[in-house]
């Protein structure tokens, strides 16, 4: 008879002091504790107690202007969008409790995919549960063993994770460097499948990719092209289809990946494509198959919002004005910005270091302004950034107020 039950098969006290699987996180734990010990409010633990509109919330007890939400088109409180969501929840319930390929495809999911087909003018659309899953799923599935992925070194985490999950050879090139991309494409062994992955807008600095040249060169080398337009959908391009539309190369993009969690104003992700065999993805793409589909209310709000974005040219024009005004105002105050000219709805303010960046972030929060604090390793070149993302619902006056807040906080922290 075994006595094993009363005898643990591992020592109860771990050998080697306090070392366990969490020890690898000690550096980041110490960094965070150091910041908080200096009296800093935790930039990564902010709670919005009330959300008043796409541009205002009560954050940590303060009335706050939101300038870091990616809510570019301000659709989150649109009455028609809310009504569509409420109706769908009443008609179809709170959730699907199932995968898209089993019991999780409702009428609303088809209508949401139809809205995307109309928005992009493409043949196929596939809705995922998040934008992260859309990149993870499409990239890991289409690029297999022996294929080559050529991608920008500053690609989003979801793109890198899609590469890591697949078996393709992964070859990065220097950010937005057309020549570096071309050289790598040229060196791919003959006969190997090639996928070039680009983003329309890079979210850290708010800069735009030279898609016109890059897509042309990729096509000349026989590569398929995937463009992530998460930060440009709804805003950039005549119809809001993204940088690829503005650059005139949308017809040469094999896959466009996007999200509902920015301009669309809810949550979810998608891929649109004209590839004749695209629909097979629904059966072979594991992050599509092995997760529950979006709730009926979410796909209803997304579909309604996407159709409204098709007619959003006035809002797009106002958002460009906001972006230009904020960019010019911050530059005139003396801040260092991520781009020389405003290229998107993201304006990145470069901080001297993490400590001063965190102090500036906190000073802005106390002024009543929320921006994103971005720090290494998420940032390029180990920069600390205060990222501002504008909304079409910010008024001209609000942008002026924001500039006043930046000026006071900048002087208070000694950055200006």
């Amino acid at each position, binding site marked *: 008879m075994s006595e094993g039950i009363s005898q643990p098969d591992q020592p109860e006290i771990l050998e080697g002091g306090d070392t366990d699987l969490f020890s690898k996180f000690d550096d980041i734990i110490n960094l965070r504790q150091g910041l908080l010990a200096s009296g800093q409010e935790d930039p990564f633990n902010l709670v919005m107690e009330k959300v008043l509109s796409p541009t205002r919330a009560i954050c940590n007890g303060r009335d706050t202007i939101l300038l870091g939400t990616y809510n570019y088109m301000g659709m989150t409180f649109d009455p028609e969008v809310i009504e569509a969501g409420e109706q769908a929840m009443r008609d179809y319930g709170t959730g699907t409790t199932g995968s898209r390929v089993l019991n999780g495809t409702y009428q609303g999911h088809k209508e949401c995919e139809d809205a995307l087909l109309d928005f992009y003018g493409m043949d196929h659309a596939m809705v995922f549960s998040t934008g992260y899953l859309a990149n993870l799923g499409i990239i890991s599935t289409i690029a297999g063993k022996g294929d*080559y992925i050529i991608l920008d070194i500053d690609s989003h985490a979801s793109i890198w994770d899609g590469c890591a999950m697949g078996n393709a050879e992964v070859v990065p090139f*220097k950010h937005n460097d057309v020549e570096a991309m071309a*050289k*790598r494409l040229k060196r791919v062994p003959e006969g190997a499948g090639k996928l070039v992955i680009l983003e329309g807008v890079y979210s850290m600095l708010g800069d735009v990719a030279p898609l016109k040249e890059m897509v042309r060169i990729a096509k000349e080398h026989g590569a398929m092209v995937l463009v992530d337009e998460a930060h440009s959908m709804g805003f950039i391009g005549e119809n809001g289809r993204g940088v690829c539309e503005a650059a005139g190369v949308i017809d040469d993009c094999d896959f466009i990946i996007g999200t509902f969690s920015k301009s669309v104003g809810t949550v979810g992700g998608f891929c649109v494509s004209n590839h004749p065999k695209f629909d097979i993805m629904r059966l072979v793409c594991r992050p599509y198959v092995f997760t529950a589909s979006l709730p009926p209310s979410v796909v209803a709000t997304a579909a309604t919002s996407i159709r409204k974005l098709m007619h959003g040219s006035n809002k797009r024009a106002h958002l460009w004005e906001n972006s230009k005004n904020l960019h010019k105002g911050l530059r005139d105050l003396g801040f260092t910005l991520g781009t020389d000219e405003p290229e998107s709805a993201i304006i990145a303010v470069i901080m001297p270091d993490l400590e001063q960046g965190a102090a500036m972030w906190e000073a802005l929060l106390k002024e009543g302004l929320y921006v994103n604090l971005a720090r290494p390793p998420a940032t390029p070149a180990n920069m600390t950034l205060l990222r501002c993302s504008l909304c079409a619902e910010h008024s001209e006056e609000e942008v002026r107020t924001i500039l006043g807040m930046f000026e006071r906080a900048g002087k208070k922290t000694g950055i200006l």
Partner: protein
Amino acid sequence: MDRADVDTRIRTALEPFNKKGVEVSDATTFQNDLEFDSLTVMDFVAEIEDEFDIIISMNQQAEIENYGQLVDAVTKMAGDA
């Protein structure tokens, strides 16, 4: 191209990246001895790729920890090309 030639050319390409002037042997590691961060790795790999007109994918880079392994890998790739 033999291993000695590859070694000479990589050694020259490495010089500007070897900021602290670490003495380089086959056992010298990029991460610990040369203190390469991810950005330096990218720039250095790009130099080597251009020098030999090859691709060193991230999958291959994961197998290369020290200088000697890089020289071996490049010798093989340049020979196959």
